[in-house]
């Protein structure tokens, strides 16, 4: 069976489009409660956490790169199937699919809570969630190439508005708020930074879409560009957020980046820019959420060796809506979502590491490739 079957009809992907697309997926959390959580964990040194996590994520990516080089850009689940058989591939497929749907469901809920809290207080949450999911299904249906093409339309506007918003926001801030420089201490910051390698756990998706790359160098370029873009945006946003809010405020602020944009005010000429930011934020989030849904369907299809991922999109979207309504309160959603990445980095980062070790210790190159 051709392991690339479940990627049939998705075409090939360029490294720039993929970087921006997966970068959006990684970055969705920054628009939610992530800057506040980083401040709670890292204090004034919170901006260093994404930087420290970046180094851990780069190591994981190089492990992915090594694996895909060895196995001619086969998907991680195909490699797992080759090593450990179909049953394990099936279980891992289910595990990753559930993980992506959990992430997607909680992100959906927090996104909807944001919309209700700030813009549409009278609108039922189900309307917001279902509208978003329908959009996500529509975007994901065309596969990764379609997603990446869509993000390439939004990216220039999105990046410009985000950069402007953060630059203007930063000019409202104060450099003193970044000190004391080491937050809760050097070792504390380092330890928390390593824990926050989970910020980049979505790069595991490279392991599943590897067959879509024409060449290995595109895969490598794309991964490194994704990480570089993500770390830049994470650090930039976090520095601006911390400059704008005294650390004790920053640790309690709801929807942090939105609050930054609400501060922008240059006399009467330039103010109330938040609606513009919300538009961009919603656009990038919808792509990010669609990538999440796509990832769930793709890993499920790869796990069960199905020829196409599309039939699973709608059932998984329904599951995602169900997950979104599990938390009774927005606080519960945020609480669970903040813990989830720490737990999920075990399978997300663990699988490539174990596969690499297995390939080095037990796999002989004469055995059939997946």
């Amino acid at each position, binding site marked *: 069976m051709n392991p690339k079957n479940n990627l049939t009809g998705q075409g090939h992907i360029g490294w720039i489009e993929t970087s921006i697309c997966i970068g959006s997926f990684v970055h969705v959390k920054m628009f939610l409660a992530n800057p506040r959580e980083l401040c709670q964990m890292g*204090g*004034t040194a919170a901006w260093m956490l994404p930087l420290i996590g970046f180094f851990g994520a780069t190591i994981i990516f190089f492990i992915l790169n090594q694996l895909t080089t060895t196995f001619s850009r086969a998907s991680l689940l195909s490699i797992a199937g080759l090593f450990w058989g179909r049953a394990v591939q099936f279980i891992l497929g289910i595990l990753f699919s559930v993980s992506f749907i959990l992430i997607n469901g909680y992100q959906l809920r927090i996104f909807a809570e944001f919309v209700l*809290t*700030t*813009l*549409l*207080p*009278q*609108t*039922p949450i189900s*309307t917001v969630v*279902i*509208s978003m999911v*329908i*959009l996500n*299904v*529509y975007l994901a*249906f065309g596969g990764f190439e379609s997603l990446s093409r869509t993000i390439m339309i939004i990216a220039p506007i999105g990046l410009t508005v985000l950069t402007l918003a953060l630059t203007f926001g930063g000019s*409202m801030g*104060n450099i*003193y*708020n970044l*000190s*004391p*420089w*080491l*937050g*809760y*201490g*050097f070792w504390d910051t380092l330890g928390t930074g390593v824990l926050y390698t989970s910020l980049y756990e979505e790069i595991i998706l490279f392991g599943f879409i590897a067959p879509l790359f024409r060449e290995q160098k595109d895969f490598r370029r794309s991964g490194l560009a994704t990480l570089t873009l993500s770390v830049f945006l994470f650090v930039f946003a976090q520095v601006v957020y911390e400059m704008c*809010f*005294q*650390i*004790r*405020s920053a640790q309690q602020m709801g929807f942090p980046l939105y*609050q930054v944009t*609400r*501060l922008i*005010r240059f*006399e*009467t000429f330039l*103010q109330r820019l938040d609606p513009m930011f919300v538009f961009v934020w919603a656009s990038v989030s919808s792509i990010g959420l669609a990538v999440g849904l796509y990832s769930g369907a793709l890993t499920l299809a790869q796990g069960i060796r199905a020829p196409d991922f*599309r039939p699973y999109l709608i059932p998984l979207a329904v599951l995602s809506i169900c997950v979104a309504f599990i938390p009774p309160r927005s606080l519960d959603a945020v609480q669970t979502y903040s813990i989830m990445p720490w737990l999920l980095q075990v399978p997300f980062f663990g699988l490539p590491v174990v596969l690499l070790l297995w390939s080095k210790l037990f796999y002989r190159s004469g055995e059939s490739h997946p």
Partner: protein
Amino acid sequence: MRLRFQKISLFFALLTLVLQTGCWDRNELENLAFVLTMGVDRSIDNQIDVIMRIAIPGNVAGPTGKTGGESISQTTKPITITARSIPEAVSLAEATVERRIDFRHLRVLIFGEEIAKEGILPHLDVLERFPQFRRSVYVWVAKEGPARNVFLTAEPVLEKSVSRYVDDVARGVIRYGYSRMPTLHDFLNEVDNRQSDAVLPIVGVNPIVSSEKKDSSIKPMPTDKYHQEIAGNTEPGGKTLRALPRSGGNPSEFLGIAVLQEGRLIDKWSGWDARIYGLLRDSYRGGIWVFNTPNGNETFSVIIRRARGPSITVTWDGDVPHIDIRLFLEGQLMNVQSQESYVSTEGIAILESQAINTITKEVDALIRRAQKEKTDPFYLARSIQTQSLTMQEFDNLDWKNRFSNASFTVQADFKIRRPGLRIQSRSDESR
């Protein structure tokens, strides 16, 4: 299959559009009552008076071909609701105002002095939580009385739009420096800093001008009566907390700042003190200063601008800090009342020296006053903050106690860069 799926998705997407904001969250301008300014006072029976000034949009612009209202009393209407909290007052006000009350255009929140002494943080919680309030709202404290007095008496000289009036006042404060105009965001950031205290501008109601107000217009009193009213007031305006000696104009005046510790009013500083505060806090940008000439008979005036931020260095002698403060100022000569010939390279240095002496004395006096109160609204710990490595180290500093025992030195670098459009005064006949 793909085409069919896309058609179905598109159908659902269009269907959900019908259900979007137009149905549940529509905001029709003609259904909204915009609150432009709000006041909070201590009322009877442990309740609060919440005063809301609601815009009458039709009167701001006026019907086609006609001008709008002549004053803010014609473009807005104040209502006062007594309740246990701001949210309760808002909900009760909804029952009396025919349109939905909306705070998205709120520009200022004024607290009465009594409630400011009790603490304003409990009343600011709603402003932080409820999305209609923006952190760019200004917060003022009424001097010697309830905020409601400010609402009832305010009569801007030119503006008929309350929002523009507030923005103009905020700009004016930066221009003359007799107060400071932090937004809610600035204030809350300062409150959250354990090693410093916050300030808010105080808005006073001038009793003379207030007595001149009749039916939304100010009718200045005769000169004799005016002189009787101001008799005995020998201090220059702004030096103390007393109302300015003046007649006509807006009864509201913005001189001085309220010092708040953990959100409670603990002291009020005059307009002159506010400028010194601004120099130390680095919020001062410019203003006209009047000094006595070295012989003490007359005055000279200088527009003093901040050349660059103050340098503050803290060194330690055991547990006792020593604070070295250096101010960097520059100026433009505005007048020499005495007509003496100071405007030469040697002579102008005498004026500079006189200004430096006066400023350093005032800085010295204000810091000592703050030390007595164990308050540091100047945020002098900022240099320690940037030298600290960990938050625990900085949090355990106990700065306000240590500041109260600190020794300090103050230096000011001041140059009168420009003499204006005339060189020497008339008394001097230079060749």
